[in-house]
C-alpha cells in the first residue's frame, strides 16, 4: 500500500474513533483571544458549526473579556451570548472575592445564572490572594451549588491551591493547562493530585509524553477532563492525545466527556 493510501486510511479510522469518544469540551473561549495575536475571534454564532466540525457534542464556554477587561465584562458577555448558545453549551463565569461587594454580574450572591456550570478565578490578573480568608465565601457558595472551580495554572501558586483544596474537600478544582506550558510544573501538579482527591486536570496542554497514561494509572481516569482551547488551538492536538493514549476505551470515554458531563449534571442551578 502506498503512503498516501495509508494516510487516508489512518485519517478515516481516527475519525470513526473520535466519534466514539462523545467529546465534551471544558475549555472553549468566545471573544478576541488575548496573548495569541494570530488567533481568530470566535463569535457565539460560530459555535455550533465549529463544534460540529470537530465532533464535539457539548462544551463549557468562557469569554476573553474576563481577562482582557474584567470579571464582570466577561460575565456580561456570556449572558449576552447565552441567548444563542447551542444545546449542551454552558458557561463558566469569572469570580472575585465576595468582600467587598462589587458592582456587576458576579458569582457568589444568590442563585447562579441558569447556564453557569463553573466558576473561574484569576487571582494574579485581578490582584487577590487565593486563600480561604479571601475566597472562602465564594468557595462555600460553589460547594453549595456544586460548581467546579477552574484555575489557569499561570494564575496560581501551588501552595495556595493545595490549601484551598484541603480547606474545601467537596469543591471540585480543575487545574487548566493554559495559556503557557504546564509541562514545567508537572512535578507540582502530580503531587497535588496525589494529596488532594478533589483536584482534576484539564487536558488541552497536558502534552508531556505518556502523561495521560501515567495520570490514569496513578490517580484514575476520573481526574482528567478534555479541553480543546478553541479557537486558539487545533482541538485535534488534545483529542489525539486521548485517542492514542495507552488506556482502555472506557477510560478514554471518561476523559473525553464522561467526567465533565457528570460535573455539569451535578450542578445545582
Amino acid at each position, binding site marked *: 500500500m502506498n503512503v498516501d493510501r495509508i494516510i487516508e486510511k489512518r485519517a478515516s479510522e481516527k475519525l470513526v474513533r473520535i466519534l466514539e469518544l462523545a467529546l465534551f469540551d471544558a475549555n472553549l473561549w468566545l471573544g478576541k483571544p488575548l496573548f495569541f495575536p494570530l488567533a481568530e475571534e470566535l463569535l457565539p454564532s460560530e459555535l455550533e458549526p465549529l463544534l460540529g466540525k470537530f465532533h464535539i457534542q457539548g462544551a463549557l464556554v468562557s469569554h476573553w473579556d474576563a481577562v482582557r477587561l474584567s470579571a464582570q465584562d466577561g460575565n456580561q458577555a456570556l449572558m449576552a451570548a447565552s441567548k444563542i448558545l447551542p444545546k449542551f453549551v454552558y458557561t463558566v463565569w469569572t469570580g472575585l472575592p465576595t468582600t467587598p461587594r462589587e458592582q456587576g454580574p458576579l458569582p457568589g450572591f444568590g442563585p447562579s445564572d441558569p447556564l453557569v456550570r463553573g466558576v473561574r478565578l484569576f487571582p494574579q490578573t485581578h490582584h487577590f490572594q487565593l486563600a480561604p480568608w479571601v475566597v472562602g465565601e465564594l468557595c462555600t457558595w460553589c460547594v453549595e451549588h456544586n460548581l467546579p472551580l477552574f484555575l489557569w495554572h499561570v494564575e496560581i501558586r501551588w501552595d495556595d491551591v493545595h490549601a484551598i483544596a484541603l480547606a474545601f474537600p467537596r469543591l471540585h478544582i480543575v487545574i487548566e493547562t493554559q495559556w503557557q506550558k504546564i509541562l514545567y510544573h*508537572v512535578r507540582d501538579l502530580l503531587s497535588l493530585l496525589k494529596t488532594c482527591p478533589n483536584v482534576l486536570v484539564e487536558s488541552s496542554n497536558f502534552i508531556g509524553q505518556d502523561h495521560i497514561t501515567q495520570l490514569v494509572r496513578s490517580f484514575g481516569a476520573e481526574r482528567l477532563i478534555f479541553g480543546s482551547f478553541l479557537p486558539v488551538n487545533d482541538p*485535534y492536538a488534545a483529542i489525539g492525545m486521548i485517542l492514542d493514549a495507552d488506556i482502555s476505551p472506557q477510560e478514554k470515554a471518561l476523559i473525553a466527556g464522561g467526567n465533565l458531563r457528570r460535573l455539569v449534571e451535578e450542578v445545582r442551578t
Partner: protein
Amino acid sequence: MSSPFIVDAHVHTGFPGMFYSPEVDARSLLLRMDRLGIQYAVNLGSMRNLLGGSLAEMEKAQAEHEESEGRLFFCGFYDPHQGREDLAVLKRAVRLSGFRGIKIHPSFTKVPADDARYNAVWKFAKDHDVPIVSHTWSVSTYNPVQALSTPDKFEGHVKRYACVRFILAHSGGRGTGRLEAIRLAKTYPNVYMDFGGDIYCRRYFETMAQEDILDRVMFGSDFPWIDARSHLTRVYLADIPAASKRAILRDTAVKVYGLE
C-alpha cells in the same frame, strides 16, 4: 500494520532537568518510534550537547545511530561563545555517518541570531553541505530571551548563504514570529520549518497551504518535551491533500536532512 514511514525531525535525548519526563534516552525513543510508526528521527542535540559542542556526545550519538540500524540521525551544536572549539568538534563530527546538520540556539546561548559570530558556522554549513536548524520563537513577555531567536533575525544569514538549507524549529512560535517564519519561507527557497513543541495553532496547516509553503513544513515532536501523539492526529485530519501530509510527515525531512 504497514511499515513505518514517518520522520520525526525534532527530538532530543538526555534528562531535561527543568521538567519531568518519563523517558529520555535513545532506546526509549526507538521503542516509542516503533509504536507510533516512525521510521527515522533527527536528534537536534542531547541536553548535554546543548551546553556546547562535545566530541564525546557526537560519538555517543553515532553509537546510537549504529545501534538503531540507521534510524536515529543527529546534529552537532554551535555556541558562538566557543566558536573555535565547536567548529573543531563539527569538523570531526561531519565525517560520522549519522551526522546530518548543525543546531544553533540563540536564546539558550544568549547571542542574537543576527550576530556576526554565527558567520563561521554558516560558512561551515555551506562548505560541508549540511543544514542549519535553529530554535525560533516569537517575542515573549514572560521569556524575554526569545527575542534573540525571532525568525526575522536570521534573514541576513539566510540571504547570504542561499545554498544552506535552514530550518526554523518551532515555526517562530505561537505569536507573531510565525508570520515572520512564513515570510522567510516564501521569500527564500532554502528556508524550512518544523512545528515541534506546543505549536498547536488552529489552521496551521491550512494557513501554510494558502501561503503555498506546505512543502517547507516538517513534523517534529520535540521528544522528550512533548508526546508525538499530540501532533500526529492533527496532521492526519488536516484539511489538506494526502500528498501534502506525506510531505509533512516524511518527504521534506528526508530531503532536507538527506536521510536516504
